[in-house]
């Protein structure tokens, strides 16, 4: 039978059988497909490490992938390949911090905490839109920078603490392409407070990013936060640790959404963790493109010396727009599974992708992978998605019953979000 004809008969049958909850095989009526049977399976309950969707919600943002055409693909995979659940936490550590300051502040001089002698300070022009129009701040030549040690509130201008400087052109050739200038502190510089000043007159509203990088510092601020956050979640939990210190931290948090906007977040401590509160109006970004970031700042003192750190991680904000119902129809021919049909409940039209790994059993009774199969299609409302199991790939594996479906995953290609994952989905 041609695949297209077989697909048509399967779709027609799946509609007829959609209400069937019986686990007994159902024989097809057509003579051509007399060997085809259908069973119903109930998906296994989620286990630790799985991702689930509870309540659905509609998304209104334009889809990243709005293609209407369905695409299916199947390929054999290594029989012993480990199927690993998606990592749910993103971890990052930082030996640097950054601040946004104005031209007026730079002309007056800003105080910076430095915790080691070979630190690098980068001055990068940024934009300011507070007046309604975007102001593009000019680059600063490094010879206009002054850096002095602050001793007991007094700026010691007897010696410059700069060892070397790099101008924007040189920085660009070395990989930092944002009109930055940078200076490296001299070997004589000791930890403490330094004043950075720009001597060339700047417009008061000019905006600059000051980045202090302390490579190899023993004081690394480590942040652990979720990789994904539902639009239903009112807060984002995170874990924070400063290496080589057990000092209590008082972090501040900022949300940077995928469109580049920053929003300050309230932070509360809950046990050993922290919760950043997401106000309703900030719940979702204005675009499905890109990722959001949580940025955490800490200012503290370690061994009597000031220490500042900024650390960030990225996460995907998503709307739980669809979920798999917990039953699936399995189609069989010659005692081999040919297709699995899943029912999808959707709250918004979108392009949804379902994928899974089919595993079988060898002569010794050991389970092994056969193939990975996936299908993506546009759904305007609740509907079905079919995963096909390639007969040749199944035959070539040499594996037989009992079969199982693992690593069952639902993604929304419109939001570019993983919605659910079920490590052990069904035994067929």
């Amino acid at each position, binding site marked *: 039978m041609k695949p297209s004809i077989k697909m048509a008969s399967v779709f027609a049958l799946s509609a007829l059988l959609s209400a069937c909850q019986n686990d007994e095989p159902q024989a097809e009526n057509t003579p051509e497909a007399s060997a085809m049977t259908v069973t119903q399976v109930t998906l296994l309950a989620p286990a630790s490490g799985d991702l689930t969707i509870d309540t659905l919600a509609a998304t209104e943002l334009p889809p990243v992938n709005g293609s209407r055409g369905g*695409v299916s*693909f199947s390929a054999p995979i290594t029989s012993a390949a480990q199927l690993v659940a998606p990592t749910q936490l993103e971890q*990052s550590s930082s030996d640097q911090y950054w601040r946004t300051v104005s031209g007026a502040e730079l002309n007056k001089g800003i105080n910076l905490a430095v915790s080691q002698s070979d630190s690098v300070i980068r001055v990068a022009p940024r934009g300011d839109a507070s007046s309604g129009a975007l102001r593009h701040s000019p680059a600063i030549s490094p010879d206009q920078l002054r850096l002095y040690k602050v001793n007991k509130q007094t700026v010691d201008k007897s010696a410059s603490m700069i060892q*070397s400087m790099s101008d924007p052109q040189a920085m660009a*050739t070395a*990989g930092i392409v944002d009109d930055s200038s940078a200076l490296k502190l001299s070997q004589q510089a000791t930890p403490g407070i330094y004043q950075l000043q720009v001597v060339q007159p700047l417009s008061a509203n000019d*905006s600059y990013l000051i980045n202090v990088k302390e490579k190899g510092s023993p004081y690394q601020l480590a942040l652990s936060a979720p990789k994904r956050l539902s639009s239903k979640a009112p807060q984002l939990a995170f874990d924070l640790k400063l290496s080589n210190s057990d000092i209590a931290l008082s972090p501040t948090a900022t949300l940077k959404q995928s469109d580049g906007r920053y929003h300050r977040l309230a932070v509360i401590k809950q046990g050993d963790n922290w919760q950043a509160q997401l106000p309703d109006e900030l719940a979702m970004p204005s675009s499905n*493109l890109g990722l959001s970031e949580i940025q955490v700042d800490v200012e503290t003192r370690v061994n009597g010396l000031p220490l500042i750190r900024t650390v960030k991680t990225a996460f995907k904000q998503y709307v739980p727009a669809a979920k798999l119902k917990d039953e699936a129809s399995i189609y069989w021919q010659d005692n081999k599974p040919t297709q699995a049909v899943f029912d999808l409940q959707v709250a918004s039209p979108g392009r949804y992708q379902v994928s899974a790994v089919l595993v079988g059993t060898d002569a010794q009774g050991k389970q092994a992978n056969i193939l*990975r199969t*996936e299908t993506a299609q546009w759904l305007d409302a609740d509907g079905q998605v079919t995963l096909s199991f390639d007969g040749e790939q199944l035959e070539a594996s040499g594996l037989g019953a009992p079969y199982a479906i693992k690593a069952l995953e639902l993604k929304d290609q419109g939001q570019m979000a993983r919605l659910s994952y079920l490590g052990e989905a069904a035994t067929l």
Partner: protein
Amino acid sequence: MKIYKKLMMLGLFAVSPLTYATSGLVFIHGTGHQTDALSDYWTREFVDSVRQGAASPDNYLVINCDFDQYMWDDAAAGCLAGQLTQFIDSKNINDLTLLTHSNGGNVVRWILSNPTWDSRYPKIINATSRVIALAPSSGGTPLADAVTQGNVFETSLGWLLGYGSDAVKQQQVSWMSSYNNSWLYGTSGRPALPSPFEVVVGSDVDSAFWDSDSYCAGYQYQVALETTQNWLDDCSDGFLECQSQSAAGSVWFKDIQRTAGKEPLSHQQSRRACFNLDTLIRDLI
């Protein structure tokens, strides 16, 4: 017996011309909007040298796409898919070798990892035999984080300050970690890529002004390079850390293991005919 087998093989080829592979070689650039990548990104010297190692040296293609966009964008992976599809169809290619540099590796991984994103992808996946990834930015780079910190003002129409691009934003370290975890194959704990992804790692930057080796597509500004190295591990090619380059696929070799004079390959040098890189690739393919 040996002659008989050879004759049998010849006979098979004669009656069944579609049973043997038609190979093709494709050069895929990194971040940037290329319109003449042969001259502006690679060099004629490099391309002509490498393709001599291919089974069909004239079956080659130099990609020109807008890799300033996110990897999945129509102008990036969509453009790449279009040019690859045309190449495969016009020459009946079924043994495709993709040679990528830097972010080009991510765009290729996007296609190989997401067969149902675009109806053109399955054919490309099925035709691809191997990927040779020169200094791929699989794990992103802290330098991308550095230039996207602060108010850089992106809009749906582009980057107002022109400091970066969506491709640069995508190559921030935690962003690539997220994409590796959700959308890309080939990193630890994720499904394997459908074809081998063989990586050449650049591990250092030779920028000493007294060393003529520095001038093979090298750096001019030693002090700036020393400055930007503060954002990178000690093992890096000046733009990407070694761990980022080796995050996906398998390492074919680290530069100093095989280059002439055991010279390191900077990020610029890993797309040029520096220190026999071209002949190493030529011999592999």
